[in-house]
């Protein structure tokens, strides 16, 4: 059988399996097992044992459970509602203020969490009902929440960045800080968009009445809600940027710090603790079983030679290095509409990274635009996980079509920001280039 036919069968069977709704981790594992058994020989299935061992005990992935646990504790810690209270006092009087404030909080939370669910769920519970009560339009109230959830993994810390860095051999710390300026760029563009729309049409996001607004004294007292989160951000991100702790150590310290904050807000009880622990266990197992299945899949691609075949097609089929790069990014963008980010990273990075290195592109820059490409997939319909997190909250009268429609303008905005980072790399690479190590 020719290598072309094998490649076609592998791609087709993976797509078919994924479409049945079978968990992605098992889809990858199944195609790996079948591929090895059919084209390499059943004896090579022994590699499954080393895949299971290596993918669950690799030291650079130790940052994953750390930051997953930190995000879970953050979600139950009460930090979200403290921040919301501050934001409400400062911004509710502006046109579209609550929606802009939601983006501001998501940006702050993004600097403490590496997953998109934290702010999407927290703001979905706190901010959405309040905005609707205050007469905000459905699209206005929903879009800012699902879209700014993307900031979570864009601004450090970031779970997808740990995976991308781990798979491609880039420094996790540097990739983290590549996300800072693009993160602020996206966040500012979101705020500008909301502001501009509400300025032209105040009925989309009406300000609260004058007598309900907080006075300056109340506003300044409420600022203490920002104090602890900012200290935590300085501790965790400052520690990594200054080279004092490794990213995984920063995760451990951050999780510990978040526990302390939860205790200060009197939210550190057995019920919350269990919720955070069980949530972490599920998310961690979900991600790592995809890594396990994906590693098996990569091994299979290598053993069958499909890896080299695809690389060859990409390189010979495209006219210039830039065409190859754009083709790769377009594949990821498209896959993002249908597939989970971890799975895309683990399928694509082992194939793409060597090509990119050979073409002479900056690996850190590629790692970043690849990650941002993945993150756009978090909010692109039909399979944007963030959209499902929000839908899963079960607010009355919200259909999936509503969620899709509300997020579209933000998809356009973040795509523009991403193209800017592709065309003008210093937005991403300047900050990490100034790091101590």
């Amino acid at each position: 059988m020719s290598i072309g036919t094998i490649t076609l069968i592998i791609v087709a069977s993976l797509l078919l399996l994924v479409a049945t709704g079978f968990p992605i981790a098992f889809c990858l594992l199944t195609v790996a097992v079948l591929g090895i058994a059919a084209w390499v020989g059943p004896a090579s299935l022994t590699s499954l044992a080393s895949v299971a061992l290596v993918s669950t005990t690799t030291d650079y992935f130790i940052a994953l459970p750390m930051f997953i646990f930190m995000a879970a504790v953050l979600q139950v810690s009460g930090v979200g509602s403290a921040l919301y209270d501050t934001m409400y006092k400062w911004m509710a009087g502006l046109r579209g203020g609550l929606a802009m404030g939601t983006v501001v909080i998501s940006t702050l939370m993004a600097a403490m969490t590496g997953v998109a669910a934290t702010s999407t769920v927290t703001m979905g519970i706190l901010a959405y009902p309040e905005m609707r009560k205050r007469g905000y339009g459905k699209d206005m109230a929903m879009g800012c929440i699902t879209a700014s959830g993307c900031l979570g993994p864009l601004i450090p810390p970031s779970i997808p960045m740990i995976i991308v860095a781990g798979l491609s051999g880039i420094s996790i710390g540097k990739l983290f800080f590549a996300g800072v300026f693009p993160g602020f760029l996206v966040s500012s563009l979101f705020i500008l968009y909301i502001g501009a729309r509400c300025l032209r049409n105040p009925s989309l996001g009406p300000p609260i009445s004058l007598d309900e607004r907080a006075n300056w004294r109340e506003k300044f007292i409420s600022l203490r809600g920002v104090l602890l989160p900012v200290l935590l951000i300085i501790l965790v991100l400052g520690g990594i940027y200054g080279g004092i702790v490794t990213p995984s150590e920063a995760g451990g310290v951050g999780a510990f710090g978040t526990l302390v904050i939860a205790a200060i807000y009197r939210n550190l009880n057995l019920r919350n603790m269990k919720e955070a622990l069980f949530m972490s266990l599920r998310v961690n197992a979900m991600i790592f079983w995809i890594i396990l299945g994906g590693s098996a899949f990569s091994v299979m691609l290598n053993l069958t030679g499909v890896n080299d075949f695809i690389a060859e097609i990409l390189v010979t089929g495209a006219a210039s290095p830039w065409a190859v790069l754009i083709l790769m990014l377009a594949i990821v963008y498209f896959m993002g509409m249908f597939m989970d980010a971890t799975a895309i990273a683990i399928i694509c990075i082992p194939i793409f990274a060597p090509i990119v290195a050979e073409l002479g592109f900056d690996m850190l820059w590629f790692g970043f635009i690849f990650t941002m490409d993945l993150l756009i997939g978090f909010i692109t319909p039909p399979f944007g996980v963030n959209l499902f997190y929000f839908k899963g909250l079960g607010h009355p009268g919200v259909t999936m079509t509503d969620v899709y429609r509300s997020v579209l303008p933000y998809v356009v905005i973040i795509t523009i920001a991403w193209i800017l980072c592709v065309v003008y790399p210093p937005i991403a690479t300047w900050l990490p280039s100034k790091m101590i190590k």
Partner: protein
Amino acid sequence: MQITEHKKLGAFCRLIDAINDWTGRTVAWLFAPFTLLVAADVFTRYVLRKPWFYIDVNIQIMGTLIVLGGGYCLLHQSHIGVDTVVSRFSQRTRTIIDLILFPIFVGSIGALLWKTGVAAWDSWIWKERYSFSALLPPIYPYKTIIVLGVLLLLLQGTVKFIRDLLFVIHPKLESK
């Protein structure tokens, strides 16, 4: 299928559910030492100026969290899949698709169980140790945990199959 058999199968399902739920809820507490060890290591390194081999312990804790969390994750339907296509179908059609997928699940997870099982067995015989650190901790206990985790996942998948089957045969009987 007879009602009594139905009851027996139901009892088996509940037993496996309980085992995976208990395992998950117990293993989840490992996040506490996992985090504390790192915080303690940063402390000993910067304040007491002594390095410490926490990473050897932590890597095995991480692995345990992953492999033993697999069945718990399946029990709580947290293994993410793409349901864009199948969400258009009826519950019954979706269940039948899941039933057809079961042999594939058994085949792939079974292959994983077989190969990790053989590796664990060899590891016990050779009393194998990790080679990457100065402490050379034994590796066979962790390799055994992998086998246990894969087995729990396989059992939980089997329970889902039994429930799906009962649902298709007797849609009205509650198999929980």
